[in-house]
């Protein structure tokens, strides 16, 4: 039962106006009880995909299955899915209580049960005692809690959240991230969240689907996504990364031989061949005044360019003789200023482990 995915998206496409492919042959599975994120830049089709789950858009072709049931003929009001809208869409002419009770009234639950469940839901989102308020007497954050309570009170199989944190200020956003994770653990409902903010997705979700131009680029847990991105788009979209263009040929045994300017020839784990990018995260780069002797690293000479000091680390740009500088996040492990300061023009050996180098097609 619990192994069966709660949402199955099979070959789903959505074409607007006959030509615009918003979603292009997407296949996805969301597991029961998971906190799943759809991440991508604006216009990548993530919201369209979410709206197809809710039933507000009909797939041009493909199949959406929720809880084993094909949703293609099911109207939005009959789906076991509820949604928290980006604008919250808290009904302005109803009190908080009436808003939360709305869905239960539509289900014709008895009045006593509605009262109890509404109170319980408001308690859950820490809005106990706010029942009689009108939405225009509440802050944005509180209105969002109302929207959450209103959706959760129906105990859906899946809760959809469309950019739930985008309208909140930075501080509230962080608090709400933790809050959503706590809430999801408490109620055990599958959450599917749409966001363009990678840190939001990384910190909250169990698994993330990165989308671009209507297609899914990679589906993986946050760590895999960051450490082992499937392609350049994912690598570039999530976090910072250095890329050095090169050519790769297969070397057998899951390895490729890459030839790149400055670096020369190096054999790395990977499968991509042809035009590739050697990619390495800035925090995995080390500096040394002497040439590293370890054969397990790639080392190049670099001249310090721009430096940004962030306290715990410094973001240093090295000119390594390529068009793009190599950026390194150097951890400031010493409190000796002399030791951690970088001056433009200084030359260092810049190196990183071969095993930290990604070969991206």
């Amino acid at each position, binding site marked *: 039962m619990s192994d069966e995915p709660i949402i199955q998206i099979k070959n789903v496409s959505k074409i607007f106006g006959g030509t615009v492919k918003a979603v292009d042959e997407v296949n996805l599975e969301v597991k029961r009880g998971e906190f799943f994120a759809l991440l991508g830049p604006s216009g990548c089709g993530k919201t369209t995909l979410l709206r197809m789950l*809710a*039933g*507000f858009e009909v797939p041009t072709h493909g199949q959406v299955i929720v809880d084993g049931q094909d949703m293609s003929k099911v*109207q*939005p*009001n*009959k789906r076991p*899915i*509820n*949604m928290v*809208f*980006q*604008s919250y*869409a808290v*009904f*302005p*002419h109803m009190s908080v209580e009436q808003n939360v009770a*709305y*869905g239960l009234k*539509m*289900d014709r639950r008895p009045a006593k049960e509605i009262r109890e469940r509404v109170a319980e839901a408001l308690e859950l989102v820490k809005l106990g005692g706010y029942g009689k308020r009108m939405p*225009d007497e509440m802050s944005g954050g509180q209105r969002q809690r109302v*929207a959450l309570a*209103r*959706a959760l009170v*129906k105990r859906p199989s899946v809760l959809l959240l469309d950019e739930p944190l985008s309208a909140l200020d930075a501080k509230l956003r962080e608090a709400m991230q933790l809050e959503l994770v706590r809430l999801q653990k408490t109620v055990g409902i599958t959450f599917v969240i749409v966001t363009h903010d990678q840190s939001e997705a990384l910190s909250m979700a169990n698994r993330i689907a990165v989308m671009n131009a209507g297609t899914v680029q990679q589906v993986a847990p946050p760590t895999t996504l960051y450490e082992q991105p499937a392609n350049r788009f994912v690598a570039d979209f999530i976090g910072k990364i250095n890329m050095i263009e090169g050519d790769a040929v297969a070397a057998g045994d899951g390895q490729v031989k890459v030839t790149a300017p400055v670096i020369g020839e190096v054999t790395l784990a990977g499968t991509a061949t042809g035009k590739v990018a050697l990619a390495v995260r800035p925090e995995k780069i080390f500096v040394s005044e002497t040439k590293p002797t370890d054969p397990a690293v790639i080392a190049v000479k670099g001249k310090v360019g721009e430096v940004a000091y962030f306290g715990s680390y410094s973001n240093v740009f090295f000119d390594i003789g390529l068009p793009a500088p190599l950026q390194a996040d150097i951890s400031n492990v010493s409190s000796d200023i002399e030791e951690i300061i970088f001056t433009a023009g200084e030359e260092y050996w810049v190196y990183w482990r071969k095993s930290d180098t990604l070969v991206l097609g």
Partner: protein
Amino acid sequence: MENWKRSAQTFWAAFAPPTFWLVTFFIIPLSLIWLYSFSSKTGVIDITLDWNLNQYARALEPLYLGIFWKSIVMATATTAICLVVAFPVAIAIVFSKPNMRMWLLLLVILPFWTNLLIRTYALIAVLRTNGFINNGLEWIVVNADWALSLIGLGDNTIVGPFTPLQLLYNNTAVVFGLVYVSLPFMVLPLYAALDRLDRSYLEASLDLGAGHTRTFFSIVVPLALPGIASGIVITFIPAMGSYLTPDLLGGTDSKMIANVIASQFKQANNWPFGAALSFLLMYATFFALAVRAVLMRKEGRGDVR
């Protein structure tokens, strides 16, 4: 913003012409009529202002109260029918494609480009005894009879003979005409209200399990209430004081209050009484506006326009 307030010259240059216009052609004439309503008719063209209330007393006689009541009933029926007809129209326009919307709105306001008198005569051409509707019906009946005669059921045994429907010169014709004239006044404010309505409210309602009908009555209607109220007021008030439509489409018993007022000023040559009736109509209108304002304030969050 502050500039024109500080410069007195600019202020008066902008302020004086419209003020002059309003005072000369609105406030003074209206005041004169108001004074007439407290005067007595002392000769064929002589009117003496003696501050009596006889005209108002007469206006409140059952005969005229009856006509007032009739006007209210007709205007209410007109407004109600307009609301029921205009709501789907407004919804259809709001949900149509953006490039279609402009054309549909144009169709709604197209009748304004023609004179009311011409439109009303055109309506007479449609409704009269040998108008389009009756001619069309007659054609159907005659042909149906002919078709039936082929199977031996002709000669008006089943259908016919055709007697033209009396579609004109009765109260129904007046309400029909008023609905026709007033419909744009209802459609436009409803359209404006629905257009501003955030679609996500509707989607949230559907998402929470409400059907389309429930969503309409629980979400759309309450949130469009300011537009509905505006539509009702700007339909009801002109309908209540309509003159031309009952005059041309109505029968002998379809007189509305404006027709009575006109006949007092014209045929009866009794300006004081006509003036009193006019002001009673105006007070009734003010009352309707006040009721709306109170209702809207109770609602709390309608932007009253």
